[in-house]
Structures are given as structure tokens and as C-alpha cells.
């Protein structure tokens, strides 16, 4: 009896000791987005030093706008990656959504809001189909979404030429509802003399909602679980299929918002666009600390990743460097960010 008691006391004492060792600073280091945050600060200071214009409100609003167009998608893609899946069709799905809205309203001469509504259905549908095929076939999401990517690329080009007779969608700026749709998806808000694009606010709102869902709702718990260990999740009664399909549909929803922005900001949509953008969203999520294997990450991390992307993209211009170098920096940043994430995560877990 005495022995047991001693054992228990030593054990609990040891456990407490271990807990006490983790300082708030180390806890902060354990957060998924910390690597990205450090990177973002370094990059911000760097561009602020080399280019005086970078920190001016107008220029900064432009940086934020650039970040938001990546960031809106990065929200959905981050959640999907935490859920353990991957979507290569996002870049062209954005264009598909924009084309649907534009071509439908134009061809049937309806109010553009009808097209916008249909585009939402199409975007959610693409997400649903991706998720459904994935869950049915149990193929890797890389393959399934690569197939969707190719099919959508073809459909975008083919249908646009078939219906509109060109490679770009016809102009819809004179149609009913264009003004109001533009106000919702592509207007600017004047804050203290600086025009801030509405996408920035949509982006921030989406990040807030996604973070809340992830950290404070049952669904958030399920997202972490299906990404961390789908079998374990299934065994304790988590609806794995529904969660994953829902995540793909979430990506579709984000794609719809961005697609509508593209449409109403530029009036016409080039049907061949969007190819390659899917990687930008994935890069933003990865820089933000989402694990490629799933089960770990945050929506805020994805947002910081998108912000880093926006800063590098516009910062190079403000620093008056040749933008040719941008891709090189992007690649370098991706590599550094993932290595930092890896090291930070390992150290935090060890301590």
C-alpha cells in the first residue's frame, strides 16, 4: 500500500513538473501559425526598410487587396488541408463559377443575381462531387481533384466558346443587377481617405468564422479528427464522409466568392485563367502552418500565409525590383516556412 502511494505521488509530481515547464512563450511557439507570423513580421520590416512607399496607407491597402484574393481561398483550402485532403481544382473552379454566372445571365438575359445564385450552386456542386468521388473511391484526393482540375479547364474553354463564341465571357456590365452585385463583391470602402477593397473585409470575416468553427464547434473538432486519423474518428462516431464532403463544399463556397469578385471587378472573364492558382492557395495554407498530412493547422495561419504572399507580390513592385524574381522568392519562402514550421513543431512537442 505504501509503495503504491509513493508511486502515485511521484507520478503526479512528475506530471505537474512537466506542465510547469511549459511557459506561455513555449505555448505560443506550439501554435501552428507561429512560423508564418515570424516570417510575416520579418518580411514586413524588410520591405518597409527597402521601400519607403510600402508602409504608406494606399500601398498597404493594395497589399491587403492582393492578400485577400489569395486569402479568401486560403481559408477554405486551409480547413480542407486540416481535414487531411487536398484540392487541385480550386484555381479553375473559381473561373468556372465566374463563367457560370456571366454566361447564364447573358445567354438567358436574366438579372445577374440569378447567374450569381446558379454559380453558387455550381461551386458547391463541384465541391460535393470532388468529396463524393473521393469518399466513394477512396482514391487519393490528389488524383481525384487533378482529374476535376483537367475537366474543369476543358469545360471552361469549351463551353465558353460554344455559348459565347470567344475565349472570354461577353461583357455583362449593362445588365440588370450588375451594379448591386458589383457593390457586394467588388466595391471599395473608404477608410480615412484610403480605399480598401471589400474583399479585404470578406476575407477577414471568413477567417473569423472559420477560426470560430474550427476552435469552438463540434464540426471543428471533427475537421481536426478526420485529418488527424480518419479511422479513429470513424470509430468514435464522427461522420467522416459528411465532414470531408462538407470541407470540399466549403472550398467551393470560397471559390464562388472569389469568382464573383473577379467577374464584377473586371466585367469579363478569360476562360483560360485560373490554372496554377490552386498552388498559391495551397502554398498560403502550408506557409501558415497547415500540415500536408492533415490534422494540424489554423485558419489564421492560412491568412498569414496569404498576407506573406501579398506582401512579397506587391513589395517587389514597390521596391522597384524586377517582378521576374517573384516566383523564386515565393519558392524560397515556401521552403523556409515549412522548415521553420517543422522545427518549431518538433521543439514545441519535445518540451
Amino acid at each position, binding site marked *: 500500500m505504501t509503495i503504491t502511494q509513493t508511486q502515485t505521488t511521484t507520478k503526479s509530481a512528475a506530471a505537474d513538473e512537466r506542465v510547469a515547464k511549459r511557459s506561455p512563450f513555449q505555448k505560443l511557439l506550439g501554435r501552428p501559425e507561429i512560423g508564418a507570423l515570424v516570417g510575416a513580421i520579418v518580411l514586413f520590416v524588410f520591405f518597409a526598410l527597402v521601400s519607403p512607399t510600402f508602409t504608406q496607407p494606399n500601398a498597404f491597402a493594395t497589399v491587403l487587396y492582393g492578400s485577400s484574393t489569395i486569402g479568401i481561398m486560403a481559408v477554405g483550402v486551409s480547413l480542407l488541408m486540416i481535414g487531411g485532403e487536398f484540392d487541385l481544382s480550386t484555381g479553375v473552379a473559381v473561373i468556372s463559377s465566374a463563367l457560370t454566372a456571366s454566361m447564364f445571365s447573358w445567354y438567358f438575359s436574366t438579372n445577374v443575381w440569378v447567374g450569381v445564385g446558379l454559380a453558387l450552386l455550381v461551386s458547391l456542386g463541384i465541391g460535393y462531387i470532388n468529396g463524393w468521388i473521393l469518399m466513394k473511391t477512396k482514391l487519393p484526393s490528389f488524383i481525384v481533384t487533378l482529374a476535376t482540375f483537367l475537366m474543369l479547364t476543358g469545360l471552361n474553354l469549351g463551353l465558353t466558346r460554344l455559348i459565347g463564341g470567344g475565349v472570354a465571357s461577353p461583357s455583362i456590365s449593362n445588365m440588370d443587377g450588375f451594379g448591386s452585385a458589383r457593390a457586394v463583391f467588388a466595391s471599395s470602402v473608404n477608410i480615412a481617405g484610403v480605399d480598401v477593397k471589400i474583399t479585404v473585409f470578406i476575407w477577414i470575416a471568413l477567417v473569423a468564422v472559420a477560426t470560430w468553427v474550427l476552435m469552438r464547434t463540434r464540426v471543428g473538432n471533427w475537421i481536426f479528427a478526420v485529418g488527424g486519423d480518419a479511422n479513429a474518428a470513424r*470509430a468514435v462516431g464522427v461522420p467522416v464522409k459528411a465532414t470531408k464532403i462538407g470541407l470540399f463544399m466549403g472550398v467551393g463556397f470560397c471559390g464562388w466568392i472569389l469568382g464573383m469578385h473577379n467577374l464584377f471587378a473586371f466585367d469579363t472573364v478569360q476562360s483560360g485563367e485560373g490554372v496554377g492558382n490552386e498552388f498559391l492557395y495551397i502554398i498560403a495554407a502550408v506557409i501558415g502552418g497547415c500540415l500536408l498530412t492533415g*490534422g494540424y493547422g489554423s485558419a489564421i495561419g492560412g491568412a498569414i500565409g496569404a498576407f506573406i504572399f501579398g506582401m512579397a507580390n506587391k513589395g517587389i513592385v514597390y521596391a522597384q525590383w524586377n517582378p521576374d524574381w517573384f516566383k523564386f522568392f515565393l519558392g524560397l519562402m515556401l521552403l523556409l516556412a515549412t522548415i521553420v514550421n517543422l522545427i518549431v513543431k518538433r521543439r514545441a512537442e519535445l518540451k
Partner: protein
Amino acid sequence: MNANEINQQTLLQNEADPLTHTPVHLLSLEGVGKHYGNIIALSDVTMAVDNGRVTCVLGDNGAGKSTLIKIIAGLHQHDAGTLNVMGEERKFTSPRDALDVGIATVYQDLAVVPLMPIWRNFFLGSELTSGFGPFKRMDVEKMKEITLKELAQMGIDLRDVEQPIGQLSGGERQCVAIARAVYFGAKVLILDEPTAALGVKQSGVVLRYILQARDRGLGVIFITHNPHHAYPVGDRFLLLKRGKSIGYYDKKDITLDELTAQMAGGAELAELAHELEQLGGHGDVVKEVKGEVADVSQTTGKTYQ
């Protein structure tokens, strides 16, 4: 929890329940079998589980232990015999079905998500919520509090339920999984080789949790290949070999030595001795194995050639 009112002693003697006139076990299997294509994974298994009793399923690798628990846990469906819960015939189509009637399984891999905090794992799939409609959220504070309390009751004192469950030791993780099942009102707790990957001391800790779960009135199915772990905690023992039941004993009818001997398989040992002899050379090994065979024959009262 109707089952609490049923007298265990009557049940153990397999007598009729006074109300229903049928022997009611919490869970019972009658001649259950399962085949995958032309491979017979399990055939004719009969066993019973009661409140506050531990039924041990013993068998070597490939004996059909996993198939058996998968049937009880609802991951697979049996295709022969009957599975009764509280005397009512059932066939589970999903793990959720089994969970709904109170059958919880603690798998070998524990069904925990290593990167997730302990409290999230504890409530995974059955989260507590507050609020309505789109503002329905998890009651995080309450969940953390309950996790801490439930684990403390199991004898694990954690201060930080935020740490990833992957950081806990194997025994502690086992304990979290058991505590989770107990908290969520499991009536039958299936433990799939909980001591397989653990050291001696950790195994002792887990065995103590099994007894705690039993004392709380749960029916426990303890799957193991170690008779030394099974005997001290078990009330009934089902021995499996090559998908068949080779014995089903109450504790009063079997000793640890007999159990070990049955498990060790005297026939296999005798065969091994023959083979080694034929190969020649390994004189000392042959002698040792033969000694073992003699021991086994002595305890089981059978002779092996």
C-alpha cells in the same frame, strides 16, 4: 440501466430471469461465425458478458480475436449464429449502432487522434454543446473540467488537458480511452489487447483500470494473448484458436496453469520438438522443449507425442 437490477449470481448459473423467463445476459453470442469470401475467420463462438464481470478472450495471433471484437463493435457483421443484447437479437451495421446500445470499444490503436488535445479527444464524436442554431458551440470549459475530473477518478492526475494526447504514455492513453468509454455510459467495454504494447508496470496500471471499470458495473470484454494478465482480472475465459473456440470456462473451473497450458498449445510444442530432432544438432533445445511438453501434459492431463 435496467441491467443493474438483475442478480448476477443467477445469471452466472445461467438460470432464467424471473421476469422474462429467458437467461438474460448483458451481451451474449451464440454460435457466431464469420467468413471473408472462402476464408472462415471465425466459427461457432459462444460467450456471454454480464454487468460487473470481466470476460477474457484469449488466443494467439490470427486466432480470430480481432474478428470477434469487430463483430461486437459493429465494424463487421456476423453471418452465422446470433448476437443478443439484453436478450434481444441484434446485428450491428455500424460502430454507431453498437455505441448506441452501450457497447464501447477501446482499440489497440485506441482510436485517439495524436495531434489533438486530450479534452478534444475525450469528447470526440460526442461533444457537449451550448447555444442554438448557427450559434451552437462547444462548451469548452465544461468539457475540459469533465475530462480532468474523469481522468482524476481513474487515477491520472493531469494539470494540462490541452496537451496533445500523443505526448501521453501508452498506459495513460489507454486510461483516457477507458475513461472516455466509461463516461459516455458504456455498458459493455471491449478492450483490444490493452496490455500488448506496455511494460510490466504500465500493464499493472491498465489491469487496475479494468477492475475499476468492472466495479463501476460495466461488463468488460478483455482481449489479450497473455494468460497472466487475463487470469487475475477475469471471471470467464474464452479461448480461441484458428477461428474456433477451444474452451469457455468460468474462473472456478480453471487454474492459471491450465489456462497457460491451453494457450501454450502442448501439441504445437511436441511438433516443434519432433522437427528439431529431425533437423538434428539442437540437442539442448530439444531437451528444453520436451521438458516444456512434459510440463504442459502434467497440467492439462493430456499426452502429446
